[in-house]
């Protein structure tokens, strides 16, 4: 039950993009086309789960015993950058088809703040390993959900008549605001 609550909370109530404001750059950047949004979503779920697990273990068994948790930021970002690189190399070798689909999005994921954000949130909330993994998967799913919804909306927006100054980023942000307002309807469902 607890795990189901974590999932509902991460996907709907505290959606990582629309209420926690993490990962806005890829949210605005790759949501022009549904297909690229799909590729990015897959990459984020995969890397987020992997990096949260690894950083959790490093924090638990290296940083805390050595009493250097203040090095978290530096170590975490290095681990994430290295992991992304490793995933890229392995994917290229093992599954060229998947690499074709996700390849271009992988380097972008290093600077995606959702990954580092989730790794840090796990530490802040003192989660156990099992909870951390569920939390990571759920947040990845939440990111994908928001991204895909938004990509769907933006594809339609291409056809509409928008004032000159509002074209591009501004209208996207305003649309995201309306989407976020819709998600506020879920507030209070889970504490």
């Amino acid at each position, binding site marked *: 039950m607890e795990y189901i609550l974590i999932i509902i909370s991460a996907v709907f109530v505290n959606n990582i993009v*629309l*209420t*926690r*404001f*993490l*990962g*806005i*750059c890829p949210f*605005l950047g790759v949501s022009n086309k549904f297909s690229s949004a799909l590729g990015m979503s897959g990459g984020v779920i995969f890397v987020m789960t992997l990096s949260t697990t690894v950083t959790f273990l490093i924090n638990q068994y290296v940083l805390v015993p050595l009493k250097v948790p*203040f*090095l*978290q*930021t*530096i170590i975490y*970002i*290095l681990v994430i*950058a290295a992991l992304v690189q490793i995933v890229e190399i392995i994917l290229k070798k093992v599954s060229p088809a998947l690499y074709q689909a996700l390849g271009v999005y992988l380097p972008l994921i290093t*600077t*995606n*703040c959702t990954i*580092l*954000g989730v790794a*840090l*949130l796990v530490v*802040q909330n003192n989660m156990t390993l099992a909870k951390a993994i569920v939390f990571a998967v759920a947040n990845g799913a939440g990111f994908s959900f928001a991204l895909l919804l938004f990509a769907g909306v933006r594809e339609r927006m291409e056809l509409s008549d928008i*004032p*000159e*100054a*509002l074209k591009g*980023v*501004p*209208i*996207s*942000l*305003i649309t*995201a*605001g*309306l989407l*976020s*307002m819709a*998600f*506020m309807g879920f507030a209070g469902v889970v504490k």
Partner: protein
Amino acid sequence: MNQRANFLKGFLRENPILVLVLGTCPTLAVTTSAVSGIGMGLATTFVLICSNAAIAMIKDLIPDKVRIPCYIVVIAAFVTIVDLLMAAYTPALHATLGIFIPLIVVNCIILGRAESYAAKNAVLPSIIDGTGMGLGFTLALLVMGVVRELLGSGSFFGHKFITGDGMLMFVLAPGAFICLGFLIALVNGINRKLAGR
């Protein structure tokens, strides 16, 4: 380009948030009030100046292939310094900004300036570039913070001048998106007018 123009470009013409649209995450998240907007802006400015200076100094020592990880480590080191300093001297602000202080590491403005400016220029121009960009970022955060605080809770820098609540929506998530959207549209319009003249 002379140094005056180098300094000033960050404010309007190449404002990191309003024109280049970099670093939107902290912009949306921490601007619920003017004070936290300035706090975040100045913390980022500090990191930006230091990392620009450091990277401009060591740029010839870094092999080209591993430059991005090297830049990230330099940036992460300065972010850790800011994080610890803020925890010690401004604990209230540190608590409000929370997770967004360590997340300065992945703020694309900083890595962007390192890659596109500090890696190609001398130390002094890099510092000036960092200062201008940082203050431009701070200015945008300040404007966002003031507008959202004014509409959302009816106060200005914490001084409340209405009774009851403001339009709560502007303090919450949707207001952030909508406010930034209109602000960018405004700057777009101004820049277009200036260019047309």
